[in-house]
């Protein structure tokens, strides 16, 4: 009951919780600036920073598979390891971190990999392996992670019963302002475990008087004061115990325990009247924890000690009604736990929420009477089970989306194939090859002609159309002049012949002086022609390739689509089956917790009924003459 909740094992949970602060994000990216060298990695970071971890994981897996992050291999591996961890894929995470270490990366990456490996092993309960991993960590981690390492190590040592080592380590951490309160608290716990109550109490006393304004330290302070208060009650020192109970915050999570303890401290001093005040206050509170139920019995007990027997009988009767009502509520909750539809609806709703959502009793359906489930909802097993169910529900929805898309891809591929088959004759690639060869022959003729012109110095061959027309006209005039030479006046003939030579000479001069430009232009055109022929040749080859590759592509993609379709079906079935198994496991956890609470209630009920019978017996004996 009350004091079982105050055990060191539960106090240790606090240190363990500190480790969970370092989430997947902090695994690598919080403490340094990353210069994106691969677009794909930047795209992954974009999703990662928005906490879209599933999308980030998918993109990361794709990028690694397709070699799109050549400049961020190490970053990608560390990130993937962290993401695997956040999805509970410990084996995968361990493989990724192990490979990073084996590959011999830089000291910081190595330290981060060892740190994450230690965390994986710690979570899996492999304590010796976790310690070995911690021992490999150098001095390169950022401060926050160094603190986590220190707390993880002390927890491991304490779990292995090596209190001396744990105490030595914790004492070193007392100077670390960030974790000194937590270290001191754990030091107190370790000393208690080592049967060194005096020093343990001293350490808890310092924590209990902490002036910190941090909410987690305030909770720790309450916890320390509660532990000390009950320890002093056990040592029969109610005066000092009261002082510690009075330090506990009225609105804090430990206020109920403090009120109960305060009442008992007064009762121990036979000050039952004083004891009644905290007990009555506690008994009027919402029935959420055992301290409140215990207060119902304590009130009745206090009244009995004050010899207010009638009121005491009434208090026991009220307590019996309350316990029975609560038992009925638990019975209803036990029936509701088996309602599969309720759970499915709950997980479906939560797949829409942040994957890192921290579960609380407020998230559970009313029918489950979540107020009885505080302890289990705070447990790691419950969180893991809920997370697995949420992940599986999400993955199932994801597979259903693909299952819906697969027929569309099959149709798309079929359409592409039929379009290709229809167009294939039109492509006439063979015909294209012949035409290209003819073009190439023609180009070769041009090249040969150009070579001949250069070799023969045949500048007229490079005349423009206009010049060629002028040359033709001059040649016709020349022929006419020759045929008319016998009939013409020699002087006139010579005059025309000179003119012909002049014009012909002028034309040849024009062509001759620009021959280099003309040759350059023609060579340029030939080069352009070569390039175009090359492009055409490339396209022809691509078409030829496509002619043979496309059908194989259709076939390959078709086979892939069919295979993935079947895989979706298989994995969907597996998801449903393992989801049910996990749900059953969770239901068992809840049932077990409800049964435990019910058993406690039954014990309270027995106590109340026994005390009531005793009082009624006494009353009836007094009435007898």
């Amino acid at each position, binding site marked *: 009951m009350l*004091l079982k909740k105050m*055990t060191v094992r539960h106090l240790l949970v606090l240190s363990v919780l500190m480790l969970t602060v370092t989430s997947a994000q902090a695994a690598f990216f919080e403490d340094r600036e*990353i210069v994106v060298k691969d*677009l794909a990695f930047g795209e992954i970071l974009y999703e990662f920073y*928005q906490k879209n971890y599933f999308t980030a994981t998918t993109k990361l*897996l794709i990028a690694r*598979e397709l070699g799109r992050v050549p400049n961020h291999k190490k970053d990608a591996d560390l990130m993937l390891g962290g993401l695997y961890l956040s999805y509970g894929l410990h084996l995968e995470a361990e493989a990724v971190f192990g490979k990073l270490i084996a590959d011999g990366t830089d000291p910081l990456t190595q330290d981060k990999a060892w740190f994450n490996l230690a965390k994986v092993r710690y979570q899996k309960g492999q304590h010796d392996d976790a310690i070995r991993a911690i021992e490999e960590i150098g001095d390169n981690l950022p401060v926050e992670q160094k603190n986590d390492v220190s707390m993880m190590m002390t927890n491991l040592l304490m779990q292995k019963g090596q209190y001396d080592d744990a105490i030595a380590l914790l004492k070193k951490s007392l100077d670390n302002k960030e974790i000194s309160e937590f270290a001191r608290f754990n030091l107190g716990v370790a000393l208690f475990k080592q049967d060194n109550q005096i020093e343990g109490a001293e350490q808890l006393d310092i924590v209990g008087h902490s002036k910190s304004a941090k909410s987690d330290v305030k909770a720790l302070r309450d916890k320390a004061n509660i532990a000390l208060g009950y320890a002093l009650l*056990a040592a029969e020192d109610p005066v000092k115990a009261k002082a510690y109970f009075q330090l506990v915050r009225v609105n804090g999570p430990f206020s109920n325990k403090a009120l109960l303890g305060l009442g008992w401290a007064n009762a121990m001093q036979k000050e039952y009247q004083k004891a009644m005040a905290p007990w009555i206050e506690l008994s009027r509170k919402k029935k959420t924890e055992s301290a409140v139920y215990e207060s119902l019995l304590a009130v009745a007990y206090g009244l009995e000690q004050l010899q207010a027997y009638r009121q005491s009988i009434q208090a026991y009767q009220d307590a019996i009604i309350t316990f029975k009502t609560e038992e009925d509520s638990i019975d209803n909750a036990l029936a509701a736990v088996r309602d599969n539809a309720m759970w499915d609806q709950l997980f479906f709703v939560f797949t829409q929420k942040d994957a890192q959502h921290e579960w609380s009793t407020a998230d559970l359906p009313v029918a489950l009477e979540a107020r009885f489930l505080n302890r289990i909802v705070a447990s790691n097993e419950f969180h893991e089970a809920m997370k697995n169910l949420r992940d599986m529900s999400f993955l199932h929805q994801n597979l259903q989306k693909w299952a819906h898309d697969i027929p569309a891809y099959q149709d798309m591929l079929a359409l592409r194939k039929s379009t290709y088959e229809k167009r294939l004759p039109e492509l006439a690639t063979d015909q294209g090859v012949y035409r290209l060869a003819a073009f190439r022959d023609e180009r070769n003729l041009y090249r040969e002609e150009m070579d001949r012109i250069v070799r023969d110095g045949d500048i007229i061959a490079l005349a423009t159309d206009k010049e060629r027309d002028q040359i033709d006209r001059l040649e016709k005039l020349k022929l006419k002049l020759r045929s008319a030479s016998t009939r013409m006046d020699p002087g006139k003939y010579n005059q025309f012949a000179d003119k012909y030579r002049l014009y012909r000479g002028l034309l040849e001069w024009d062509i001759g002086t620009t021959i280099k430009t003309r040759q350059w232009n023609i060579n340029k055109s030939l080069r352009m022609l070569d390039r175009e022929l090359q492009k055409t040749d490339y396209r022809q080859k691509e078409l030829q390739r496509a002619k043979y590759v496309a059908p194989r592509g259709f076939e390959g993609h078709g086979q892939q689509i069919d295979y993935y379709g079947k895989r979706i079906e298989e994995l969907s079935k597996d998801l449903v089956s393992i989801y049910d198994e996990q749900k059953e496991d969770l239901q068992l956890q809840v049932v077990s917790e409800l049964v435990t609470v019910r058993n406690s209630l039954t014990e309270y009920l027995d106590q109340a009924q026994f005390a009531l019978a005793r009082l009624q017996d006494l009353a009836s004996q007094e009435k007898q003459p």
Partner: protein
Amino acid sequence: MKSIKQLFWVLVVGLVMAPVVMSAGTDKEPQGRAVSLDDKVQKLKKEVMQLNRDLFILEEELLFPSNTQVAVFLSIDVGNYFRLDSVQLKVDDKVVANHLYTKQEADALTRGGVQRLYLGNIKKGQRELVAVFRGPGPNKREYKRATKHVFEKGSGPKYIELKITDVTRKLQPEFVVKEWE
């Protein structure tokens, strides 16, 4: 049966003893079952994630073959002089993407994330890309800037990055376009 006071004292005395007792019992039995189930869940999650990866790769191959694939990315370097609210992307005067940024998205960009703004199919040849950025600029005034980029789409995939950087000298944002291999 124990009295209420006795019951309480049994518990109180258990305070110091409890750590020892509780540390000895670490819920071994339920863990055994959970481990086996956990292994199954892990294996299944891994398989589904791998299938998801393969399906995305197939989808990209089918929907965006490399010879027509064009992807436009957006990144922000520093971002002191401009806070991105929205962007519109046009290729050859046709709007291909519009995006309004949430705070989370803008933060992710500022921290170094790169958004894939557009993934589509574009034929070979010379293409013109215009991006219009909107948001509060220097002095928190509404700011609208367009940037144009002409690119040659060849036979391989084309990756273009739109980068918003700060020009400290001018106290102005700058919009840079970079083509990636």
